[in-house]
């Protein structure tokens, strides 16, 4: 039988079982790397470096994981902190990560007629960083508004605002896929 996350965590805590931690990494790497790829706007190399740092930190802090939240939510919280710390470093190229100007939605011509997956990726890239930060865990990870608020340390109202704005933009950007629009 496949062990649960809690059982693997207990094994790591009890005896520094690295194979159990490896199993946890394999289970959650996709969610963490995807989350960081969104935050870094598709810079896969940086996202993977930050994801690695996230798991190394999680390993060190595993003794303090109380199980009050989902393990994947806890990991995303660490990933968000790692990303924020990375942004504070002097080598951070702020200009590259500027938000898309609010209110201006541009659908690149190349997306018209392309497949939905591609259109979704392009539409997501049109959102501001904060909108992506709210949309990604809500829609892709299934986190509640409260969990997102705890994850990114925003007030609940701010989470809802960014979610609604992000969804509205996505609806407009993906209108071609909606036969009733």
């Amino acid at each position, binding site marked *: 039988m496949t062990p649960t996350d809690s059982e693997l965590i207990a094994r790591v805590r009890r005896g520094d079982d690295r194979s159990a*931690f490896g199993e946890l*990494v394999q289970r959650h*790497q996709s969610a963490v790397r995807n989350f960081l790829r969104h935050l870094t706007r598709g810079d896969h190399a940086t996202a993977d470096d930050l994801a*690695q740092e996230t798991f*190394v930190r999680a390993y060190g802090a595993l003794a303090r994981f109380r199980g009050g939240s989902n393990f994947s939510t806890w990991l995303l919280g660490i990933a968000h902190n790692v990303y924020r*710390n990375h942004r504070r470093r002097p080598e951070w190229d702020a200009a590259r990560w500027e938000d898309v100007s609010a209110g201006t939605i541009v659908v690149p011509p190349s997306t018209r007629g392309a497949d939905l997956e591609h259109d*979704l990726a392009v539409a997501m890239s049109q959102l501001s960083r904060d909108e992506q930060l709210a949309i990604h865990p809500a829609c*892709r990870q299934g986190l509640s508004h409260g969990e997102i608020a705890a994850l990114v340390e925003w007030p609940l109202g701010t989470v809802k605002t960014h979610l609604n704005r992000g969804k509205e933009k996505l609806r407009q950007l*993906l209108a071609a896929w*909606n036969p009733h629009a």
Partner: protein
Amino acid sequence: MNQPAEDERLHAWLRQHAPELPDDGFALRVLAALPPRAASSPRVHPALLATCGGLAGLVFAVLKGARWPDFVRAVEVAGSVWLQLAGAVADPWIWAAVACAGTALLARSFLVRWQTRH
């Protein structure tokens, strides 16, 4: 336009089209980057250690020819040392030093928690 249905469709699209990234050796890289294992040291209960130490001392003293009056004298000496220590603790500077050490330990504990969080 039916907004909840739109929302549901959006959520479903995003869920279905979230690419599942293959591990491609990522987990191995993470494991290689983990800090080295702490040297495992056998854990001995402190009470057991103290009892064994006391017994060893007693056996050593008896083998050296110590008698009961010697033990009584040793206890008296230990008592006088304790009284001197108690006198020293009454000094407010000692309390100030203890408070400083306690604050430093607490600060370190908070710092470790903060670093873990950030």
